[in-house]
């Protein structure tokens, strides 16, 4: 189709035709709008040449006057005028895209923004990007972050929910359990229909429905000394919601060796505790708890019960810590242990110091030879034996 603009006849093409040509290559794509429009959303490889600067800037953007040159704007008017001007300047093979980027997007064709976010993402995360502490740069950090959740249960469920909503780009989930009806009082990402399904799969379905930006990686199984370095090595931050001491000590020792920050929380009854362990910047889990308690002082939630909303409170506090670590904003709970008691609604903060004698991150820890790295003690024995006769 052709339309008149001034005395010139210019070629107009539909978005799908433009898309085919662009995919075929050898096309110069010119965006004839203003910079703020371009920043919001533009076609991939589109070069910005605002209408008022056309004569000055087109030579830089499209130096070859014989090359196929497609112009677009918001709705097709400005690009038609610009196409006519280019023809007057001697460009030989110019087309204007009918309907502009609006028509392009209506047909479901992709756009990008100079910020690295799509228009859909700019909308989805607008309440984040409005915050100076987050902004577009911070949201991009979240979209590029890789966070591993140890446990897709009481703590992992609310943590995963908010990290997925926040647009954390990769969420790994480690869990070997299946959804049980008794989980649903607190594990809010699972549901009645998914009873019997592996928790990692149920979590993935929930997260994918909430936010398609999130890539969910299922690690269906348990962390052990043989797989932990490989699994956590791929992630920036680990969130510890493990239900047992052997896994907590194993994770600590491995994360210190790989220098991965760990956001660690635990819940029981109406009580929760949370801290953030950043290796060599603050204490590690062993500095706080050098030895695990004996079994009678280490009851589990299944044996003792837990208020469902407690898991939500502590899990969302974990998500908050993760987001601060990713953004580099605020003051994470490094060297601080926060206790929450739900019946009295009280928060208590305790100081946690690095232990110079810590076998994992203490003064002598740097001397552990490379060959010993990744060799872990038998944590089940270590935990079972601790607190016995001493």
């Amino acid at each position, binding site marked *: 189709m052709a339309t008149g603009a001034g005395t010139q006849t210019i070629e107009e093409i539909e978005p799908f035709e433009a898309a085919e040509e662009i995919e075929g290559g050898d096309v110069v794509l010119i965006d004839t709008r203003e910079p703020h429009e371009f920043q919001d959303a533009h076609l991939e490889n589109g070069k910005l040449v605002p209408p008022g600067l056309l004569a000055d800037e087109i030579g830089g953007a499209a130096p070859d006057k014989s090359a196929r040159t497609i112009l677009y704007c918001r709705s097709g008017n400005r690009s038609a005028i610009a196409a006519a001007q280019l023809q007057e300047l001697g460009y030989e093979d110019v087309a204007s895209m009918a309907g502009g980027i609006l028509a392009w997007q209506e047909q479901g064709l992709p756009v990008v923004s100079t910020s690295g976010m799509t228009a859909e993402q700019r909308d989805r995360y607008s309440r984040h990007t409005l915050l100076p502490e987050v902004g577009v740069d911070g949201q991009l950090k979240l979209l590029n972050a890789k966070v591993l959740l140890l446990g897709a*249960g009481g703590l992992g469920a609310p943590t995963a929910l908010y990290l997925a909503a926040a647009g954390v780009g990769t969420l790994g989930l480690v869990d070997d359990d299946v959804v049980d009806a008794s989980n649903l009082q607190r594990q809010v990402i699972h549901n009645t229909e998914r009873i019997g399904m592996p928790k990692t799969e149920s979590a993935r379905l929930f997260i994918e429905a909430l936010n398609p930006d999130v890539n969910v990686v299922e690690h269906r199984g348990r962390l052990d000394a043989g797989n932990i370095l490989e699994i956590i090595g791929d992630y920036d931050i680990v969130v510890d919601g493990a*239900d047992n001491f052997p896994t907590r000590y194993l994770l600590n020792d491995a994360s210190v060796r790989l220098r991965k920050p760990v956001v660690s929380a635990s819940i029981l009854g109406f009580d929760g*505790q949370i801290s953030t362990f950043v290796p060599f910047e603050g204490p590690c889990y062993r500095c706080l708890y050098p030895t695990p308690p004996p079994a009678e002082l280490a009851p589990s939630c299944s044996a003792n019960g837990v208020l469902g909303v407690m898991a939500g409170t502590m899990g969302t506090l974990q998500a908050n810590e993760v987001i601060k670590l990713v953004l580099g904003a605020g003051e994470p709970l490094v060297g601080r242990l926060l206790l929450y008691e739900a019946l009295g609604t009280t928060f208590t903060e305790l100081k946690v110091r690095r232990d110079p004698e810590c076998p994992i991150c203490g003064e002598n820890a740097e001397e552990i030879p490379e060959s010993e790295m990744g060799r872990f003690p038998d944590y089940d024995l270590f935990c079972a034996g601790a607190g016995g006769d001493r």
Partner: protein
Amino acid sequence: MATVRIPPVLRPKTDGKPEVEAAGGNVGEVLRNLTESYPDTQAQLFGEDGDLNRYVNVYLNDEDVRVLDGLDTAVKDGDTVVILPAMAGGAS
């Protein structure tokens, strides 16, 4: 008198109380007075050698007594002594 905060796992030994008042000029005296009032807490707090069990953290207000003077750390009226064992609940 100091206020001693009792962790959930010890509350069955203190008639369910989350906080107990106990007298004493230092942390050790406060804890021993606690064990006299609630004898079942003794074995959980102290080993046979009379030292605190290693898996029990004790804080005076917000500071770990390990970096203060341990059980000899002086306690004033109105201070809070926090007893804190590790907890592992989370996923299951």
